[in-house]
């Protein structure tokens, strides 16, 4: 098991390294740190700009290969991801931002997967009855609401709710309030902040698992081994839970891994709407400020999240599927 996981992880690590390097090279083709200094008042001379950019490894006068090696070797040997055009360390930025985004993405992923699977089981066991029809009708609409509209709609509802109650139950901006201390107050405060962005991500994301789980479970419920289980005397609920559900969960877990990039994209948009200072907001900031090193760090974060999701999916498949033997 551990050897199998090690091998898979090594494969994913290679993929992440390749993606990160490719993004570095592509970023130089589309971002131009020099343009940040053009049009300054008072105007900077060519030499002044070079003097500013050179020590930050952001001067496009240096050959691309040399820039790349400077960047890559400093990550490899010192775990230093470089600095922004204004000299801020990328490591410092990512170090606190990744937890903010990670919290949002992880919470949303778990919630929407569980909700989707639960709804899928519910509607498969009531195929074509009222409950199934209503659930499917709702899901096809929520799945296709653009995340921007969903998030802003939730903001409007939350503001109306706060006004109706007369106190701020849900915060619509930021990931935490300043000056909150103690364990319980901090927990309550972060729940008040995280509830709305998570709700937006879950609202648009759960439906794909609902449909997937429903159709997989329906295929399995009709299969011979479930009929066999029923014939042995299991109740329908037992047969579905112990035999049909377990097999049909396997494709769902692999799907979860590959939907992480989509959740990350959703997180970029929700973070920008809810003014979270996470990786998503960093994504927007780095692109608009021509921060090559920062952009690459965001890409690496996204790729690592995908890889982590894929490895977790591998583990889940091994646990769920008795046919997969890895040792």
């Amino acid at each position, binding site marked *: 098991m551990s050897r199998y996981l090690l091998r898979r992880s090594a494969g994913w690590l290679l*993929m*992440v390294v*390749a*993606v990160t390097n*490719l*993004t570095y090279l*592509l*970023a130089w083709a*589309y*971002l131009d740190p020099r343009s940040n200094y053009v049009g300054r008042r008072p105007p900077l001379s060519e030499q002044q700009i070079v003097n500013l950019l050179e020590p930050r490894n952001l001067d496009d006068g240096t050959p691309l290969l040399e820039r790349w090696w400077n960047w890559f070797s400093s990550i490899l040997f010192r775990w230093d991801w470089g600095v922004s055009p204004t000299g801020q360390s990328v490591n410092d930025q990512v170090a606190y931002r990744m937890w903010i985004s990670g919290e949002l993405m992880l919470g949303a992923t778990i919630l929407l997967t569980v909700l989707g699977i639960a709804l899928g089981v519910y509607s498969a066991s009531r195929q074509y009855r009222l409950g199934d029809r209503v659930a499917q*009708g709702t899901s*096809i*609409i929520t*799945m*296709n*609401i*653009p*995340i*921007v*509209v969903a998030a*802003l*709609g939730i*903001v*409007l509802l939350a*503001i109306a709710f706060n006004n109706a109650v007369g106190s701020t139950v849900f915060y619509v901006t930021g990931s935490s309030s300043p000056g909150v201390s103690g364990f319980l107050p901090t927990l309550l405060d972060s729940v008040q902040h995280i509830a709305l962005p998570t709700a937006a991500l879950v609202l648009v994301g759960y439906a794909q698992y609902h449909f997937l789980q429903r159709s997989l479970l329906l295929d399995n419920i009709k299969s011979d081994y479930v009929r066999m289980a029923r014939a042995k005397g299991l109740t329908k609920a037992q047969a579905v839970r112990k035999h049909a559900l377990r097999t049909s969960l396997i494709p769902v877990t692999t799907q979860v891994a*590959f939907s992480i*990039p989509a959740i*990350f*994209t959703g997180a*970029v*948009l929700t973070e*920008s*709407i809810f003014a979270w200072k996470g990786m998503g907001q960093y*994504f*927007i900031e780095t*692109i*608009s400020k021509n921060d090559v090193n920062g*952009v690459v760090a*965001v*890409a690496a974060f*996204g*790729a690592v999240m*995908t*890889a982590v999701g894929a490895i977790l999916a591998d583990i889940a498949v091994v646990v769920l599927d008795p046919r997969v033997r890895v040792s």
Partner: protein
Amino acid sequence: MATESFPLADATSDPLVGGGDTPPVEPGPGERKRLTKWQLYSRRFVRNRPAVAGIVIFVLLVAFALVGPLFAKYDHVELDFLALSDPPNPDHWFGTNNAGNDLYAMVVVGLQRSLLIAVVVATGTTILSAVIGTAAAYFGGRIERFALFVIHFLMVAPTFLLLAMMSNDSGGDWKVIALVLILVSWFFQARTIWTLSLSLREREYVHAARYMGVPGMRIVLRHLIPNIGSLLVINFTLGVVGAVMAETGLSFLGFGVKLPDVSLGSLIGIGASSMSSAPWMFYFPAAALTLLTVSMALVADGLRDALDPTSAAGGRA
């Protein structure tokens, strides 16, 4: 007239081809009237009520995008300094923003832009994914391995980031945005098509064509792709939904379509900044956008019921 007589002539010249298009035979006693292919499709489609609602909404939206400008009293870049941040009124049907732009005109232009990008992207993605997916399955070997490597690589690659970088660099030119969107969104569909084509390439007619000496690429185009036609139709409609969402997301962040050009995404972006003072700036573009994506998704759902012979959701026939 020529087009009407074509299937008839075709059917008489070769009774084996176009079996679905043969003219309906007089029903004998106890025999059900035969349906043509299109009658069958449309009957199964119409049975899905939400899909019919979807196509009606979609047609109305397209009509609104095409005919809407005729009724507009203002141009979308024209500034009305006497009506800044006006709520909807008889003069400005959807209200105005804080610079005095007429929101009705902006929504019409934004809808046109979003629709155009979506249709171009969905067409491009469908063609690209169909050719790459089937060709990879048919040729196998090195071509297949390479195609799958590219697909898996793109699954990990931060495509939205690359998309944002490239379209930001282009300065908001919708043609560049469409092109880049095609490049980063074909691979998911290509993978599905590849999986399906694996069984398709083992069919007798494909073998027969190969032994007759038909060149490989022609087999792919003439024998494999037409056989996944119904999937491609569904992919196209879902591709429209995906493209609209990606484009509006980009434009919302300010990396997509840029002023003076507007899209539904950039309009929502403007509306988001004045949610409490001028909520209509958000309501109208958001409503147009949601109607567009949801209606297309409902149509895709209905098409799946209509075109998939194994689907039971449409009832019998």
